[in-house]
C-alpha cells in the first residue's frame, strides 16, 4: 500500500503519514469516565439476577501426589451450590497456552504451593471464599525443587536449551588482554495490576457462553473455555472492554478463571463471577521469571569488548507456559546495545516447583539486558574508565560492527545520537565531577551516577502472532465504530486507534468510537503484548479504513468526473480539486447508492523470520531505542537510597500521541525501578510465597518518583513502514530503569574510588546495598593490610 520511505525527520513524511497536531493531543479516550468513576471494569458490570460467585481452593504444599480430597465440609458450608475437581472437566483439562503442563485444576499431581485444586460456587463472594478454605486435601509430599541451582543439579527443565553464537568465542577470549567472569542474580516481579484477575460468564441459549474477562488475550480465553467445556469455538464469545492494568500478567494468566467460571456456569445454568482476592492472586498467578546469569567477557585496556560468553537460566516454575519465548527474548537482549565481536549465548529453561512464571513487560528482555550492563560496568571498573566512556565505545556502529549475536544487522541504530544529546542535556560530565567532589567530603552518604542505553527488538518472536484484524463500520450519520483485536489495559491503544481512524477519514475524533474487544467482531487475534498493540492493530484498522475510503473516493470521483486516487479526506470532507463534499453528505449518498460502509482489515508484519535451529535470522521488524541517566544517594550506614534525578531521552519514532507515549515511558521507568529496587519476591523454604500482599511486597509509591524527572521524546520517524512511522513504546522504557541499579552500584563503588565493581544482585533492597557496602569496606580494609 505504501512505499517504504527513508525519511529520518517526521516533518519530511508525506502528508497522509502525519497525524495532525490537534489529533495528536487527544487525551486518553476513557479519561473522563475514569476520573468520574463511570469507566466500567468487569467487576462493575451490572450483575445478572441469577449470578453466583466462585472461589478457588489451593494446595498448601509445593510438590506431591493427591491422595484424597474430602470436600464434605465445603459442601456443608453456608451458601454452597457446587464444587468442582479436575475430574469434572468435560473437555480438555490442560490449558497450557503453547505447550502442555497447566491443568485447570490439579490433576493427580501437585506442582506448586498454591496450585488450584478445586473450585466452589456459592451465593455470595464471602461464602464462596470461606467454603474454599474448608477442604481436607491429603497430599503425599514429594521432594520439591525450589531454586535454579537445585533444578540444575537435578536436570529439571521445562524445555530444551537454545544457543546463539557468532565467531570463535573460545579463541577470542584466550587472546583477550583481560578476562572477567561474573554472575548476577535477577529477581522476578509481581505484576500488581491494580484490578485483580476477574471473569464473569453468562450462559446463553443451548451451550453458548458469553465471557467477560479481564484479559490481554480474549481469543485464547475463547479457545480455552471452548476446549474445557468440550464445545466449538463459535459457541463462545469473549468481551473485554478494559483492564485495570495488565503488564503481561493477563496474557495467559486470565484464562484459568474464565474457564472455571464457565464450567460452573455450564453445570449450574447460572451466571458465575470469579474474582481472585489480592493475596490469592499474588500466590496463584505467574510472575516475571527470576534469572541466574553468568558471563565471561574478554576486553582490552581501553575497555573494548572482544568476546562474551553468556549463560542465562530462567526460573520457569513448574510448566512451560510462555517460557520458551521469554528465555529466547532474554537471549535476544543479552547484547543490549553493544557489539560483541565474538559471542556465545545460551538460554536454559529451569523447572521448579513454583507457580509457572509468565509474561511481564519486557518478556525476559530486561533479565537479559541487565547482564549486558553488568558486563559493561565490570569492564569499566577493571580498566579504570568512566562506565559511560566504555559503554559508548562498545555500541553497535559502522566502526565497531552491526551484527547481533543472532545475525541480524542493526540498520536503524540511533543510539549514538540519543546518548550524545542526553549526555549534554543531563550535564553528565559536570555532574560526574560534582559527585566526585561530594563523595570526597561525605563519609556516610555517597552519590552515584549512571547512563544506560536501551535497544529493544519489536515483534513477537513467534512469527505467526505478528498479525492483526480489524472491523470498521461507518454509520449513516457519519459516526464511525472501530473494532480491533487489541485490548485496552490503560496503555492508550484505543486512543491511538481512534486517532488513526480520525486521521484516515479526515474527521474529528468525536466521530470515532472504539468498542470493547470481542471475539465475534474480530476473530483469531493475537494477545496485546510485545509492545505490538498499535503497530499491528493500527495497521489493520488503517487497512480497513482504506477499503472504505476507496469505495467512497470512487463514488465521489465518479460523481464529479475525477480520479478516485486524487480524493483527499480531510477537515470533515472529501476534496477533489475544486469539488468538495462533506463527510456526512458523502456517507448518506453512498448509503443510498448501496455502497458498503463497513470493512475489515488485516495486517501482517513484513520482513521477519528466525530459524531456531541455527539461532539466526531477523526476529525483529525494527528496534526501539532510548537512554536514561539516574543519580542516586545511598546511606552507607543503612543501605537506604534515594533517586535524586532522572533524565530520559526515548525513541518513539513519529509519535502518534506524545502525552500517551510519555506516560508509557515514565510509568515503565518507575515500574522498572520497582523491579530493581524494592520489589522483592520471597518464598520460604517450603515453597510458600511470603511476599504475598501489598504490606509485604512494595511497589513504588508516590514519594519514590524523583523530584527531577526530565523525560523527552526523540522524535525521528521510524525508517520502517510502521503505522505513521511511529514506534512501539509499551516495554522498551521499562529497561531504562537499569540506570538506577547502575547508579546505586556506582555510589557503592565510590567507596573504592570506582575501582571495585560491587556484586549487587536485584532487587537492590536497602539490605542488599548495605551488604555490598560492608563487603567492599572489608575488601578495602583487607587490601590496606596487604600493602
Amino acid at each position, binding site marked *: 500500500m505504501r512505499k517504504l520511505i527513508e525519511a529520518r525527520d517526521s516533518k519530511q513524511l508525506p502528508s497522509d503519514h502525519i497525524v495532525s497536531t490537534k489529533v495528536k493531543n487527544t487525551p486518553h479516550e476513557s479519561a473522563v469516565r*475514569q*476520573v468520574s*468513576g463511570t469507566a466500567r*471494569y468487569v467487576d*462493575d458490570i451490572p450483575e445478572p439476577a441469577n449470578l453466583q460467585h466462585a472461589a478457588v481452593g489451593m494446595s498448601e504444599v509445593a510438590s506431591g501426589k493427591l491422595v484424597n480430597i474430602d470436600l464434605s465440609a465445603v459442601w456443608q458450608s453456608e451458601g454452597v451450590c457446587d464444587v468442582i475437581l479436575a475430574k469434572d472437566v468435560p473437555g480438555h483439562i490442560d490449558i497450557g497456552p503453547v505447550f502442555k503442563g497447566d491443568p485447570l485444576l490439579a490433576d493427580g499431581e501437585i506442582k506448586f504451593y498454591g496450585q488450584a485444586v478445586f473450585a466452589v460456587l456459592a451465593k455470595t463472594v464471602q461464602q464462596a471464599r470461606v467454603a474454599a478454605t474448608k477442604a481436607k486435601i491429603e497430599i503425599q509430599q514429594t521432594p520439591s525443587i525450589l531454586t535454579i541451582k537445585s533444578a540444575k543439579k537435578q536436570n529439571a527443565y521445562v524445555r530444551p536449551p537454545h544457543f546463539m553464537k557468532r565467531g570463535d568465542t573460545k579463541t577470542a577470549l584466550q587472546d583477550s588482554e583481560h578476562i572477567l567472569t561474573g554472575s548476577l542474580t535477577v529477581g522476578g516481579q509481581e505484576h500488581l495490576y491494580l484490578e485483580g484477575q476477574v471473569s464473569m460468564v453468562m450462559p446463553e441459549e443451548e451451550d453458548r457462553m458469553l465471557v467477560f474477562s479481564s484479559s490481554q488475550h480474549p481469543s485464547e480465553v475463547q479457545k480455552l473455555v471452548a476446549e474445557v467445556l468440550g464445545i466449538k469455538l463459535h459457541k463462545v464469545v469473549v468481551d473485554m472492554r478494559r483492564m485495570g*492494568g495488565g*503488564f503481561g500478567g493477563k496474557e495467559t494468566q486470565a484464562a484459568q478463571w474464565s474457564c472455571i467460571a464457565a464450567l460452573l456456569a455450564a453445570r449450574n445454568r447460572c451466571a458465575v463471577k470469579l474474582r481472585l482476592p489480592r493475596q490469592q492472586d499474588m500466590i496463584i498467578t505467574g510472575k516475571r521469571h527470576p534469572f541466574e546469569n553468568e558471563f565471561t567477557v574478554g576486553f582490552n585496556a581501553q575497555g573494548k569488548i572482544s568476546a562474551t560468553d553468556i549463560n542465562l537460566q530462567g526460573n520457569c516454575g513448574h510448566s512451560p507456559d510462555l517460557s520458551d519465548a521469554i528465555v529466547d527474548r532474554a537471549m535476544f537482549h543479552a547484547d543490549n546495545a553493544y557489539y560483541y565481536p565474538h559471542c556465545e549465548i545460551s538460554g536454559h529453561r529451569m523447572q521448579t516447583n513454583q507457580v509457572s512464571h509468565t509474561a511481564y513487560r519486557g518478556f525476559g528482555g530486561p533479565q537479559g539486558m541487565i547482564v549486558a550492563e553488568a558486563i559493561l560496568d565490570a569492564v569499566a571498573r577493571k580498566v579504570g574508565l568512566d562506565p559511560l566512556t566504555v559503554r559508548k565505545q562498545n555500541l553497535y556502529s559502522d566502526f565497531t560492527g552491526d551484527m547481533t549475536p543472532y545475525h541480524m544487522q542493526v540498520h536503524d541504530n540511533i543510539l549514538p545520537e540519543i546518548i550524545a544529546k542526553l549526555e549534554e542535556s543531563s550535564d553528565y560530565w559536570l555532574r560526574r565531577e560534582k559527585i566526585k567532589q561530594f563523595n570526597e567530603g561525605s563519609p556516610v552518604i555517597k552519590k552515584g551516577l549512571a547512563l544506560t542505553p536501551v535497544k529493544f527488538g519489536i515483534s513477537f518472536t513467534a512469527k505467526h502472532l505478528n498479525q492483526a484484524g480489524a472491523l470498521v463500520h461507518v454509520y449513516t450519520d457519519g459516526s464511525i465504530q472501530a473494532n480491533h483485536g487489541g485490548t485496552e489495559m490503560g496503555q492508550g491503544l484505543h486512543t491511538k486507534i481512534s486517532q488513526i481512524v480520525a486521521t484516515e477519514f479526515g474527521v474529528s475524533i468525536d466521530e470515532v468510537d472504539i468498542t470493547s474487544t470481542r471475539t465475534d467482531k474480530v476473530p483469531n487475534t493475537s494477545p496485546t503484548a510485545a509492545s505490538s498493540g498499535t503497530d499491528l492493530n493500527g495497521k489493520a484498522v488503517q487497512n480497513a479504513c482504506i477499503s472504505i475510503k476507496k469505495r467512497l473516493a470512487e463514488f465521489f470521483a465518479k460523481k464529479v468526473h475525477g480520479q478516485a486516487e486524487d480524493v483527499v479526506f480531510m477537515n470533515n470532507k472529501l476534496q477533489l480539486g475544486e469539488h468538495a463534499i462533506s463527510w456526512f453528505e458523502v456517507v448518506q449518498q453512498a448509503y443510498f447508492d448501496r455502497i458498503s460502509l463497513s470493512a475489515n482489515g488485516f495486517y501482517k508484519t513484513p520482513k521477519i523470520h528466525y530459524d531456531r535451529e541455527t539461532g539466526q535470522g531477523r526476529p525483529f521488524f525494527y528496534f526501539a531505542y532510548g537512554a536514561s541517566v539516574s543519580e542516586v544517594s545511598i546511606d552507607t550506614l543503612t543501605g537506604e537510597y534515594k533517586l535524586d534525578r532522572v533524565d530520559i531521552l526515548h525513541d518513539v519514532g513519529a509519535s502518534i500521541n506524545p502525552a500517551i507515549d510519555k506516560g508509557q515511558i515514565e510509568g515503565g521507568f518507575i515500574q522498572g525501578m520497582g523491579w530493581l529496587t524494592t520489589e522483592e519476591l520471597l518464598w520460604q523454604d517450603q515453597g510458600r510465597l511470603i511476599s504475598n500482599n501489598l504490606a509485604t511486597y*512494595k511497589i513504588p509509591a508516590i514519594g519514590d518518583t524523583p523530584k527531577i524527572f526530565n523525560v523527552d521524546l526523540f522524535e525521528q520517524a521510524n525508517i520502517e513502514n510502521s503505522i505513521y512511522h511511529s514506534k512501539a513504546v509499551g516495554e522498551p522504557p521499562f529497561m531504562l530503569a537499569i540506570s538506577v541499579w547502575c547508579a546505586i552500584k556506582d555510589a557503592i563503588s565510590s567507596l573504592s574510588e570506582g575501582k571495585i565493581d560491587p556484586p549487587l544482585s536485584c532487587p537492590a533492597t536497602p539490605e542488599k546495598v*548495605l551488604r555490598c557496602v560492608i563487603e567492599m569496606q572489608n575488601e578495602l580494609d583487607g587490601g590496606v593490610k596487604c600493602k
Partner: protein
Amino acid sequence: MIQFLLNNEVVNIQHEKADLTVLQFLREKRSMTGTKEGCASGDCGACTIVTADVDENGLAHYTSINSCITFLSALHGKQVLTVEHLQNEQNLHPVQNAMVKYNGSQCGFCTPGFVMSMFALYKQAEQGLLNKSSDSAEQSAPIKRHEVIDALSGNLCRCTGYRPIIEATLQACDDAKADKFTQEWPHTVKKLLAIKHAEAAVGTANLLMPRSRDELADAIAAYPNAPLLAGSTDLALSSTQMLQDLKIMISLSAMSSLKRVETSQNMLVIGAACTFSETESVLLQYFPDLFEVITRFASRPIRNQATIGGNVANASPIGDMPPVLIALGAKIKLDNGQTTRFLNIEDFFIDYKKTELAANEWLDSIHIPLPNPDQLIRVYKVSKRNEDDISAVCLALNLQLEEGLIKNFNAGFGGVAAIPSACQALNDELVNKAWSSTEALSLAQQIVKNSFVPITDVRASSQYRTQILQNLLHRFWLETNSHAHKIATRVEQHA
C-alpha cells in the same frame, strides 16, 4: 441505628452485618461501582472515599479514608462522598479536570481513589488548613510538593509513575476555589447536626456504639468476646483477609472521652481513640523530632483512621508508635469502668501480641512526659520503601546530656523482638559516660547487639536488623555530636 449522609441522602443502617465494610456497602448494596477494590487491606487506596465531619464551630473537615477496611459505625454523623458525587451536573470537579488535563489516568483503576485523595487535599487547601513549611525552594508555590506526596501517600498507581498525578494535584489545589460542597455546606451542616443531636441510641444490635464509660463497661460485660473497634485498620483485616465472621463488635467511635487531647502536670495526655491525624499537630508541637516517623507511619488515609491506642493495644512488634512511646517514657492508663490504673508502656507488652489488658479493661489514654530542652530525640525507621511501609527496624532514641555526660538514655525498639522493647542496659551502662567519645558509641552498639536476637522474615534478615541497630546508633552519634554536624547522614531530608 447508624445514620449518615451519602452525599445528600440520609442513610439509616439498622440490620446490616456488623463487619460489612463501607466498600461492600457502596458496591454491593448501592451498586455504586466507581469506588474500587484493589487489595481489601488498606494498602493500595483504590477504595479511597472522603468523609466530611462538622466541628463544634460548624466547619467542615474533609478526611480521606480507605473504605475497604472501614465499618459502617465510622460513618455515623458524617457525610460520605465518593467519586460519583464530585461532578457538578455535567461539569467535572477541578481535581477531576486536572487529572484529565495532565494525563493522570492510564488503566484508570486507581484513579477514583486518587481523585478522592486529591479532593480531600483540595478542600483543605480551599479552607487554608495546610501547614506551610519554610522550604525555600518551593516558597512561591502556595501548595507544596511534600503536601501532595503526603495526601497521596496511600494511593498506589502501577501505570503512570505518578509524575502527572503530582502535577495535576499541584495545579488543582494551587488555586482551590469554593466548589459545590462549599455552597451546599449550610444545608449539609443542618442534616449532620440533626443526626448528631438525635436522641435515639446509636449503633445497631451487632455493632454497638457506647457513648460513655458505663455504657462501654456494660457492652464489654454483655459481649466479652466482642472486639473493641477503633480505627479498624487492623481489625478489618480479620474479616477481609482472614475471612472471619465478626458477628458483634463494640465501636469506640462515639466515646468522646477517649478522644481528648490535653496537657496537664507536664504530661501530654492523648485519648486512646484519637487518630494519628488528630494528634499529629500536638505531638509535633512538643516533639518536632517525630516528624519523620509520623509522616512515614502508614499512609495519610490510614493515619486518618488508625488510632494511637489501637497501635499500642494491638501490641504488634512492628508498630511504630510503641518504640517511640517507650523512648519518651510514656505511661498508659487502663480502665474497666470502675477503676483505672497506670502502667509504664514497656510493661504493657508481655509476649507476642499479648498485653497486660484484662478482659474487662480498655485502654483509656496515653500519658507522655513533656520534653526538657536538653533532650535529644531521634526516631529512625528503616524499611524497603520510604512511604507506607512497615519497619524492618524502628529505633527511637531519647538522650539527655549534662555537660556532655549521659544522664539518661532511653530507647525503644521495634522489629527486633517479639514485643516492642526497651533496653535498660543502655541506660545503666552508659550513664555518666561522655557521649562524644567513640568508646561510648562502641559500648552502646555492643549492648544493643547483645540485647536482641531479631528474626529473619519477609522484611529483613536477622543479620541486617542487628547491623542496622548498631549503625543507627552510629548515625545518632554523628547527628548529636556537634563536631560531626556537617556530615550528611540522610539520603532524604525530612522537614
